[in-house]
């Protein structure tokens, strides 16, 4: 009798086995795509992939850890500039430099966190923005990296990226297209890797701690959760991923300037828009958001300011009337979840 009233902790893993299988197939198909697709499509997909990766990162920060940052452009720009410094200055291969940029960005994130974590909630948001501005102004001082006007990656760096000869021979393309293809694969790896990263963080004990802090910080702390360290861990992890994405973005653009690399519009506003429209606090949301964002950008970007007014207005309307975004609405209505991060109490039937 005692047994039957015992609750069981479960998460919906089996239902997602099919999804995991189809995701792997999708990623493999996308990886093979450059063999048949044109350069334009590849470049569009690079954009979609890095926006998705950035959105997943911001979502982990704001949606799960309660760290609403308007300053993630600090780490995008930092990653970009580190890529330039490592490849031009130290002669490191760009692919290795992308990874290294992420690691160094994480090192920068620790002292940054000790400053911005002094501010809470909404003050953290603007505080993180100020820090990003400080990064922008400091990088504008480095004359070796082009100062305020910026600099370009020399062809000697971009044309000797690891694996480029192999791609040129295998797919029969010229150097610029081969470079795009390699960048595309890294972008795909990041876009597929960040949701997995978020998933595994949330499934871990740190994830449980994050949920506890989100529901009630005081209660979580009284139960032994170290709120500061949990948030610091997420912040540094996200900085590493964001730094890598930033390095990748500027490997593809091959031209960097402080105003572009630390742009609040490109690397915060758009990213936040993607997450809000798709659904904040879900792994599925950013995926849907990035598709909506790409479609809007594709059809409306020519309208310039009107396009941006529309994006802003859409974000406001979503926040007011469907604060959980498109995916939040769908999952609430139909009870579906692709990534089983929720732990449910199940009462066993007799």
């Amino acid at each position, binding site marked *: 009798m005692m047994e039957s009233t015992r609750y069981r902790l479960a998460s919906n893993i089996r239902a997602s086995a099919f999804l995991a299988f189809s995701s792997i197939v999708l990623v493999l198909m996308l990886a093979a795509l450059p063999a048949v697709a044109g350069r334009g499509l590849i470049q569009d997909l690079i954009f979609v992939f890095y926006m998705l990766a950035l959105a997943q990162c911001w979502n982990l920060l704001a949606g799960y850890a309660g760290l609403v940052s308007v300053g993630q452009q600090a780490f995008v720009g930092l990653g970009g500039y580190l890529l330039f410094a490592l490849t031009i200055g130290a002669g490191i291969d760009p692919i290795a430099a992308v990874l290294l940029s992420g690691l160094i960005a994480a090192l920068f994130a620790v002292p940054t966190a000790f400053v911005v974590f002094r*501010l809470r909630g909404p*003050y953290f948001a603007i505080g993180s923005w100020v820090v990003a*501005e400080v990064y922008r102004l400091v990088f504008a001082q480095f004359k070796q990296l082009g100062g305020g006007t910026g600099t370009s990656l020399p062809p000697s760096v971009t044309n000797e990226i690891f694996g480029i000869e192999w791609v040129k021979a295998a797919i029969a393309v010229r150097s610029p297209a081969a470079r795009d293809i390699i960048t595309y694969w890294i972008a795909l790896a990041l876009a597929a890797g960040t949701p997995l990263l978020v998933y595994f963080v949330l499934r871990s004990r740190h994830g449980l701690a994050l949920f506890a802090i989100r529901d009630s910080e005081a209660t979580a702390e009284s139960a032994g959760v170290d709120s500061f360290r949990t948030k610091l861990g997420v912040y540094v992890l996200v900085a590493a991923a964001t730094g890598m994405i930033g390095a990748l973005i500027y490997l593809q653009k091959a031209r960097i300037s402080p105003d572009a690399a630390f742009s609040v519009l490109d690397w915060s506003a758009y990213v936040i828009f993607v997450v809000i429209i798709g659904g904040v606090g879900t792994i599925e949301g950013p995926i849907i958001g990035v598709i909506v964002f790409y479609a809007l950008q594709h059809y409306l970007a020519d309208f310039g300011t009107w396009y941006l007014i529309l994006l802003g207005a859409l*974000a406001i309307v979503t926040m007011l009337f469907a*604060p959980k975004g498109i995916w939040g609405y769908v999952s609430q209505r139909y009870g579906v979840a692709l990534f089983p991060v929720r732990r449910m109490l199940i009462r066993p039937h007799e």
Partner: protein
Amino acid sequence: MLWLGTIIEGVLLGGLYALFAAGLSLVFGIMRLVNLAHGDLIVLAAFTILSLTTWLGFDPFLAALLAMPVMFAAGFALQYVLLNRTLGRDLLPPLLVTFGLSIVIQNGLLEAFTADSRRLRLGAIETASIDLGGNLAIGVMPLLTLGSAVAVILLLNLLFYRTALGRAFRATSDDLEIAQLMGIDHHRIYAIATGIAMLVATIAALYLGIRANFDPTIGPARLIYAFEAVIIGGLGSLWGTLAGGVIIGLAQTVGAKINPEWQILAGHIAFLAVVVLRPRGLFPRALD
């Protein structure tokens, strides 16, 4: 003597930043709302004044006087219709709605007024200065700006501590539920507060437009200076906000004196130093 001039210049610049910040501080103190569109609303006010001067040929001061009730109404409506819906336990809605609003206002202004730099023209008084002797002179307009900032803070304090409306402000700030039990319509109180914040923003916009060129994209930077002044001063303290503005102004002019490229950076560094050493600001009144 050279440094004395720099310091005077910094203090006077602080007056402008205090005007940027006073409205933000008021709204902050009463409803804990961080309005990310505050800087863009200041720029909106500047363009409203500019339109009145160009279309109707008014002097900027008269135009600002006429723009004030318009901006008050805009602030009241903004709070009543939009921002009141976002207030609650969750911190995302107010932040993201005002962030979206910032983008809408910026691009709306770009659409209406293009990206050209504009300026409010006042004639000779723009460059007039008072000679203090020994190569030291104080600009009349910067002095007027600081004077207005002090007057605005003084009036806001009088309103806050000496009137029935101010009592309602303080009551809703201290304990929302008890204030509601006492019959205060907090939605209306909040709307009036944002309306007043927009009144002050209009005064700030007047001096902003006379002091330097402006265009639709400069709002976010004004928001950051204003926010820095509020945090340095401490939450809920209007005199603290004035002090915060002066500190940012001083840091910027001293930084610029050392190296012109360090002006903005020096202000940010001063802010971050206060955040690290005194995260609650120098003169906090309210607990967040």
